[in-house]
């Protein structure tokens, strides 16, 4: 099973690793800085000792002497803490510091005799030592230059190169460094543990609003989908847009559900009357023994009602398809004049049968609206169907297109004898007018759904009575 990504775990792992890495890096830097410092300090003292010892090799009275040997007592510091050895490169003789006894230091020097510092091993003395090796030349007393001890024989220190190696013990430093390393390792571990605890608490308290929000969402029962989530005041700013989007998603869902409920309610209302009629006719027919002609009459009535039911179901399912579209309404430029002609041509036979004339004004002009083609077509078709059904025989249906304030309006008027006191009631589901001539196949659902379709695409559909004998429906759409 795929493990779900958890913000908490991710944060814990990442922050934990971050803190761990940071403290390891910090410890390492501390260790190396201290190590560097201690080494430099030791190297410095080795350098200083070497420089003192280099200066203490003198050419005096025709021979090379080591001053430290003379004042060995005052130079105890040097001879106690450092080991050193001179090699006379000319004679091959070597001079060791007293503590060296017979042991030799490793002999080395830098290129061209320059000082070079290395870590060395002094067998029997220092397991680890820092040693400086260089070539030195005896110091010539100025008096000796003006008054040479061996007349005629000028002394040139360059002819008496010596290699000097000075070593100091590194062990105490290494011990200190070991203690430091152990301390830092424990420190790092403690930092890691403490860091983990602190991070966990911080993550938990930061994620608490999410849990709160989740509980709130859980608490919303399915039948209260449209009630808004009460945003906790402590809700972090990052979560507010999420909660708000969720809220708006839920209210959209609720409105879809309401529409579905409405649709089912309308449909069941619509179906009730024909079913009541079918049940009444059959109950009547069966309530006693009747003549054959009477049965035929009742069966004919049943057939007629079944036909009505069939038409109603077809209409309902067509509307359901429009009502439950998964895609939101489109907003594309629609040439209304062309769409109108298309819808009118569909009703041409019905209009002709009823002797109805259609007048469209103005004759010219472009009326392009921004709307959904399917929904607009549905509305136009319903309005024309409506006008064709209710206009008296031989009358004229007037269609007027207009443009104002970024809106395109199309109004369809027809004379009628059945004027409702409140034309807005025509949009109520089931509201049925008295058709002037057709049998009652008009089921009072077309206008309701036309208005719903209009509202779905930010359009309006209204009805009014411009005079006492005319009904007018106006569809107003956003213009381009």
């Amino acid at each position, binding site marked *: 099973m795929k493990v779900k990504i958890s913000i908490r775990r991710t944060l814990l792992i990442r922050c934990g690793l971050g803190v761990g890495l940071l403290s390891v890096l910090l410890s390492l830097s501390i260790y190396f800085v201290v190590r560097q410092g201690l080494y430099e300090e030791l190297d410095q003292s080795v350098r200083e000792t070497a420089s003192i010892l280099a200066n203490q090799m003198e050419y005096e009275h025709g021979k090379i002497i080591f001053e430290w040997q003379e004042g060995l007592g005052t130079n105890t510091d040097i001879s106690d803490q450092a080991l050193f050895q001179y090699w006379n490169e000319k004679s091959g003789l070597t001079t060791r510091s007293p503590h060296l006894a017979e042991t030799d230091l490793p002999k080395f020097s830098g290129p061209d005799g320059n000082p070079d510092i290395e870590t060395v091993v002094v067998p029997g003395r220092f397991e680890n030592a820092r040693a400086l090796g260089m070539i030195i030349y005896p110091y010539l007393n100025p008096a000796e230059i003006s008054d040479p001890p061996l007349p005629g024989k000028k002394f040139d220190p360059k002819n008496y190169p010596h290699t000097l190696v000075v070593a100091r013990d590194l062990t105490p430093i290494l011990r200190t460094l070991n203690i430091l390393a152990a301390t830092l390792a424990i420190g790092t571990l403690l930092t890691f543990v403490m860091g983990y605890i602190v991070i966990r608490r911080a993550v938990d308290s930061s994620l608490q609003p999410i849990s709160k929000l989740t509980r709130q969402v859980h608490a919303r029962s399915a039948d209260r989908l449209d009630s808004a989530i009460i945003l906790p005041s402590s809700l972090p700013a990052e979560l507010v847009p999420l909660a708000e989007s969720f809220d708006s998603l839920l209210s959209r869902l609720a409105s879809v559900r309401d529409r579905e409920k409405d649709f089912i309610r309308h449909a069941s209302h619509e179906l009730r009357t024909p079913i009541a009629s079918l049940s009444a006719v059959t109950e*009547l027919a069966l309530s006693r023994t009747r003549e054959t002609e009477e049965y035929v009459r009742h069966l004919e009535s049943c057939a007629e009602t079944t036909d009505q039911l069939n038409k109603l179901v077809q209409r309902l399912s067509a509307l359901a398809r429009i009502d439950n579209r998964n895609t939101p309404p489109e907003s594309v430029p629609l040439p209304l004049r062309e769409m109108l002609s298309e819808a009118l041509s569909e009703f041409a036979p019905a209009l002709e049968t009823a002797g109805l004339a259609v007048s469209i004004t103005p004759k010219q002009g472009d009326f392009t609206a921004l709307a959904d083609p399917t929904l607009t077509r549905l509305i136009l078709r319903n309005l024309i169907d409506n006008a064709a059904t209710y206009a008296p025989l031989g009358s004229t249906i007037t269609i007027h297109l207009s443009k104002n304030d970024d809106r395109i309006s199309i109004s369809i008027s027809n004379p009628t004898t059945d004027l409702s006191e409140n034309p807005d009631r025509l949009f109520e589901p089931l509201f049925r007018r008295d058709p002037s001539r057709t049998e009652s196949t008009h089921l009072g659902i077309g206008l309701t759904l036309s208005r719903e379709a209009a509202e779905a695409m930010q359009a309006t559909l209204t009805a009014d009575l411009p005079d006492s004998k005319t009904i007018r429906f106006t569809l107003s759409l956003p213009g381009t």
Partner: protein
Amino acid sequence: MRLLIIEDNTSLRESLTQFLREHSFVVDSTGTGDEGLWFASEQPYDVILLDLMLPKIDGMEILARLRKKQVSVFILVISARDGLEDRLEALNAGADDYLTKPFPMVEALARINALIRRKYAVKDPVISVGDLSIDTVRRTVKRAEHQIELTALEYRLLEYLTYRHGEVVTRTDIWEHVFEDSTGGNSNVADVYIGYLRKKLNPGDLPNLIHTRRGQGFVLEEPGDQIPETRIQEYQP
């Protein structure tokens, strides 16, 4: 008993009309609200079956207007609207009962009978006057031990007199509640049918139950309960 059906669905209206006529009711029917309102205002109906969704004037409007005019007719609403709010709205506007479509016609019949019993303050569907008993549900009539066979019109007349037993029923009342075509007409027809009823209700030597009040009408009552004719005349204005 005279009923009015206001329902715009033709086949439902016609079926209901025929069914109720076959159950001994006098039924008027119409498919539009305005005509329905006119009928209801002009005729004294026992019960009106009223649909709510109607052309021209809707059922709720008819209810409101009738109640405003103090028309005390019993109204049974028959509607496709099945919501609680719809039922409450209609009942609170003055409807006496509410039936949701589709409904079995026998239920409509039972509810109409119940409303009629309420109207005439009768509880038992079997009404007895002395040794005469009328089962208003089965539409059977018994006098003492004799089962009486009546025609639809005779039954209707007897049922009407029985619901109003003990009080004087005018010929106009009979005309309006019992006869199919209540307009104009000849009041002698009522006397003729009363005559038929008397003959059928008095098998053997059983005493007469339907008495004529001269100049007023008829009264159905037990022989011992008779109100002296002169006393009634005294109360005449």
